[in-house]
């Protein structure tokens, strides 16, 4: 087993050996259900999951940084980072091992929303393709948020600071694409810049995937975002691991 897999396995196990995973899953599942029904799931009288996916970015803004905040901040605070980086593990292997373990954990959380799919299928005949792309978009968005959280976790030893910084960064990237924000900035910014802001946002690309169209630009947005923040995380970590 190479070092990446060793870190990945240890990290994933650690979620379930502490109450963290269970607390997270219960809160996530409760709010994802609550927000869906509050948004008028029945009143829409449509057998689709748009009410569910619509609220995910907002939920992720808080939930994903809460998963990511401990990734490196805790290692640095407890000092276990000294053990980790005196074992034959490269920084890239460690960062990727932790990132993918946390990502898989979020995928498990998303997979546990399956009763929603069953409900929709029971009530009508939904477009399964739309549900699949909706989940794919959510999976990529979780990865993007996680990469940002991972970076801020490496920036500070303090988990609360990491959490707050990640929430702010994620919120900016979500709200930049909201219609209200865009209509406001279009009053004083040229159309080119407004479009640039729109394209920088999670919301725009997530909605696009959720509509059932898998465009190269949307996929590459998420993939580049993840690679960029993960690379930044590795650089910061290499610089600050011993401080």
């Amino acid at each position, binding site marked *: *087993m*190479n*070092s990446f*897999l*060793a*870190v990945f*396995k*240890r990290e994933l*196990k*650690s979620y379930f*050996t*502490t109450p963290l995973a269970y607390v997270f899953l219960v809160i996530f599942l409760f709010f994802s259900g609550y927000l869906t029904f509050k948004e008028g799931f029945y009143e829409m009288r449509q057998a689709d999951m748009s009410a569910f996916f619509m609220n995910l970015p907002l939920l992720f803004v808080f939930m994903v940084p809460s998963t990511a905040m401990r990734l490196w901040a805790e290692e640095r605070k*407890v*000092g*276990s*980072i*000294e*053990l980790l*980086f*005196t*074992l*034959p*593990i*490269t920084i890239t292997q460690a960062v990727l091992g932790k990132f993918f373990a946390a990502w898989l954990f979020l995928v498990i959380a998303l997979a546990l929303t399956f009763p929603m799919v069953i409900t929709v299928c029971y009530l009508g005949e939904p477009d399964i393709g739309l549900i699949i792309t909706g989940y794919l978009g959510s999976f990529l968005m979780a990865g993007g948020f996680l990469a940002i959280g991972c970076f801020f976790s490496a920036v500070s030893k303090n988990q609360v600071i990491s959490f707050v910084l990640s929430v702010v960064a994620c919120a900016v990237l979500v709200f930049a694409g909201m219609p209200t924000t865009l209509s406001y900035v279009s009053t004083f910014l040229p159309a080119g810049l407004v479009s640039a802001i729109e394209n920088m946002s999670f919301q725009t690309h997530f909605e696009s995937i959720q509509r059932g169209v898998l465009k190269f630009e949307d996929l590459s947005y998420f993939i580049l975002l993840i690679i960029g923040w993960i690379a930044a995380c590795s650089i910061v970590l290499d610089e600050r*691991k*011993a401080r």
Partner: protein
Amino acid sequence: MIEVKELRRSFGPVVAVDGISFSVEKGQVLGLLGPNGAGKSTAMRMLACFLRPDSGTATILGYDILKNPIEVRRSIGYLAENVPAYNEMTVGSFLNFVCDTRQIKGKERKQALDRIVPKCSIDSVYHQTIETLSKGYKRRVGLAQALIHDPDVLILDEPTDGLDPNQKHEVRKLINKMAKDKCIIISTHILEEVEAVCSRTIIIAKGRILVDSTPGQLKEKYQCGLDAVFRRITRNGKK
């Protein structure tokens, strides 16, 4: 086996290690002595490839700490000062994780665990989580993870700190037993430990090497115990 050349590292305006050079051969147990803040741990952290030196370098078993850090880490056993570990893990799962990272698999892993667990006397706490262990047991678990791959080079930062007298005796016996086939560097504040296990002593203060000798020669030269030698050298700050 270890060749240190002009190793230097500072933290902001504070120079922690100021151009130290020494070499250690197989069969030697080098005791790194010095007052608090002398730079012992920083030097060890650089040798274990956790900290990057500002200048200078070192080679361990022919691998350069700057050019081949992974090879260096693979071939050494390192016990850090505060014995970092994953507190939520059990001792068994922690040692298995270390085996995973060191690519110790199958039969080889079973043999390694069967050898190291009784050697470090951690059989009774094998299924306990690390956070519930006493300081002494934590240190023994740290020692087990440093020895699990039977490395040729050992770097141990205060290996007996927090252990009771029986455990101290056991660890010293263990170090003496391993001494002839390995190259060992230990840092300590306990001077009786130097006499018990070290074949050579380096005293450092303010990041510089003040003395490089054997405990016997030091006592002979200064005509007093190691305690007094240590005080005299580190207070004067010169050889």
